[in-house]
């Protein structure tokens, strides 16, 4: 019996192809049962996320033959033509284990080191386990993958730092305010990134979001989505005294907030920090405002720069992760794989 993984991921296939092979969770027990009934696998786990569809099997078929048979099976099951070969990848035995360890640790993810994949993998394994589709080989393999991911997470910095503009804006806010709970946020201009930023701030405890936009209807729609309050564009200054964070992303060709105007507004309120997140291009906020005491300005380049720094830091950690994965792979092979598979079947590198 050999171990095999067959998959499509964001590395190998466009979303148009991945979505055709994606399975909703409710359909997974059925496909696993059909796979076993067809005699293609003794044990099977199906992972289906927006970025990958992967089938992990323990099968009696030889490697290349199993790969072809499984591809044909999946295509028939989804009623789609078999896609071109290069869109699929297949790994056998120790390479399939290594691939799983990397996936579980977030090293194969679109955002390096992200943790959501581990939860998705645990869920996929749980579905297979509950439906009796796993056995000794996949149980050992997935347990080893989960413990490897845990070790990678705790012993390296692969998951440290945020990598999206919205989450970096929140991280910056947390370096200014003593907690985000109860903070008042205003969104000026109803753009996509400002909406994500507002949602991220709300998720960390911000009290409410006031949305101001030239089109009041768009402001009202966004306010409804995020559970906030819409105001007319020319009214935002009236709300200023109670604001802690302003996220601006209008398409105005000039500054919406300039230094003199802001200095005047600040004199009307108690001394406390104000964070201005300027996501607009051209910029909405005069860069000279950062000379004002207690005013902090971050534009889209600042935030992207921090996100890039986090990505670079994660890349540096990749080598340390690889060492852990290799250690765990050797241990897994020594302890379990030789018990499950006849000696001489596997060629470890």
């Amino acid at each position, binding site marked *: 019996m050999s171990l095999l993984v067959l998959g499509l991921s964001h590395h190998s296939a466009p979303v148009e192809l991945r979505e055709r092979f994606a399975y909703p969770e409710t359909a997974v027990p059925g496909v696993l049962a059909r796979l076993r009934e067809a005699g293609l696998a003794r044990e099977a786990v199906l992972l289906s996320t927006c970025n990958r569809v992967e089938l992990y099997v323990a099968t009696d078929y030889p490697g290349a033959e199993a790969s072809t048979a499984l591809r044909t099976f999946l295509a028939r099951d989804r009623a789609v033509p078999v896609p071109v070969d290069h869109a699929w990848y297949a790994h056998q035995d120790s390479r399939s284990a290594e691939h799983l360890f990397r996936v579980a640790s977030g090293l194969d993810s679109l955002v390096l080191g992200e943790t959501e994949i581990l939860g998705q993998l645990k869920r996929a394994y749980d579905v297979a386990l509950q439906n009796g589709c796993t056995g000794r080989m996949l149980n050992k393999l997935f347990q080893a993958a989960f413990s490897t991911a845990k070790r990678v997470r705790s012993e390296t910095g692969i998951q440290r730092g945020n990598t999206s503009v919205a989450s970096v804006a929140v991280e910056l806010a947390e370096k*200014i*305010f003593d907690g985000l709970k109860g903070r008042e946020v205003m969104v000026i201009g109803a753009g996509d990134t400002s909406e994500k930023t507002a949602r991220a701030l709300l998720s960390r405890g911000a009290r409410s979001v006031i949305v101001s936009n030239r089109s009041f209807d768009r402001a009202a729609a966004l306010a409804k989505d995020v559970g906030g309050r819409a105001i007319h564009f020319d009214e935002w200054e009236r709300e200023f005294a109670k604001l802690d964070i302003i996220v601006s992303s209008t398409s105005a060709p000039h500054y919406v907030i300039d230094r003199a105007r802001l200095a005047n507004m600040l004199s009307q309120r108690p001394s406390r920090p104000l964070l201005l997140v300027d996501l607009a291009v051209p910029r909405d906020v005069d860069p000279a405002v950062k000379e004002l005491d207690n005013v902090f300005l971050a534009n889209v380049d600042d935030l992207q*720069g921090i996100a890039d*720094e986090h990505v670079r830091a994660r890349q540096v950690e990749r080598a340390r992760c690889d060492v852990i994965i290799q250690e765990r792979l050797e241990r897994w092979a020594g302890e379990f794989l030789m018990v499950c598979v006849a000696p001489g079947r596997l060629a470890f590198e």
Partner: protein
Amino acid sequence: MFGLTDRNWFSLAVACYGVGALYSVLLWRRGFRRDDWVLYSLLAVGALTHTSAMFLRGFSIDRCPINNLFEASMFISWTIVASFLVLGTWQRLRFLGAFASPLLFALGVFALFPMLDERGPKPAFVHGWESLHAALILLAYGAFGLSALAALMYLSQEHNLKFDKTRAVLSLLPPIQRLEKVTTALLWAGFGLLTAGLIVGAWWLQQQQGYFLSGDPKVVWSLAVWSAYLILLILHWRPLAGGRRFAYGVIGVFAFVLLTFWSTNLPSAIHNP
């Protein structure tokens, strides 16, 4: 103890603080990205030898060792290092050592100047009230010192947040709003202690010499410092008087205290009879 005098033990402590101060330069350059146990350990060893010095001096004179400038400096720096060791048990606050060690080293080097450790007759106050007065005043300056350190951290992080956001985000320094709260709280604590210390001192002056106030340089200086901190606290309530300006004020007043505490002590007939 081990054939070493109290000054020897204190010198060892100052050496540890000196090494810590050098090591802190590295931490400053790195931007406090990780908590650091090396500096914590160095300061812990320093605190141990520092405490030994305090005990030896205290037992040798059979009273709280705050009777001359050497002892006063030793007591203030001990307050600061002890506070750091307590706060440093929380891993995220261990970076505070990078701010505390240069101050401890500077205070220690100053305290070791020989002319500051002269054992004259007992000052005008007697019994435990003298110790209480001195202890309250010195604890107040310890709190003001910590407040100035928090204000320094505020300025460092505020500068990063304005001009080097990546460094600010990667730093372990707490949010600046919390630093401002800590600065203010320590300032209030110091102000309360200073007020209590001055009241005790004035009351005993009245008992001993029949008047509450005198034109003694140290008394005048103490009242000036007390007024400066009061003005800072009042101004902090006003709009536009928080943040950077407040931090500069706190550091400025404490720098004045550090630079003039010793020079006003020497000509004081009450404190340096």
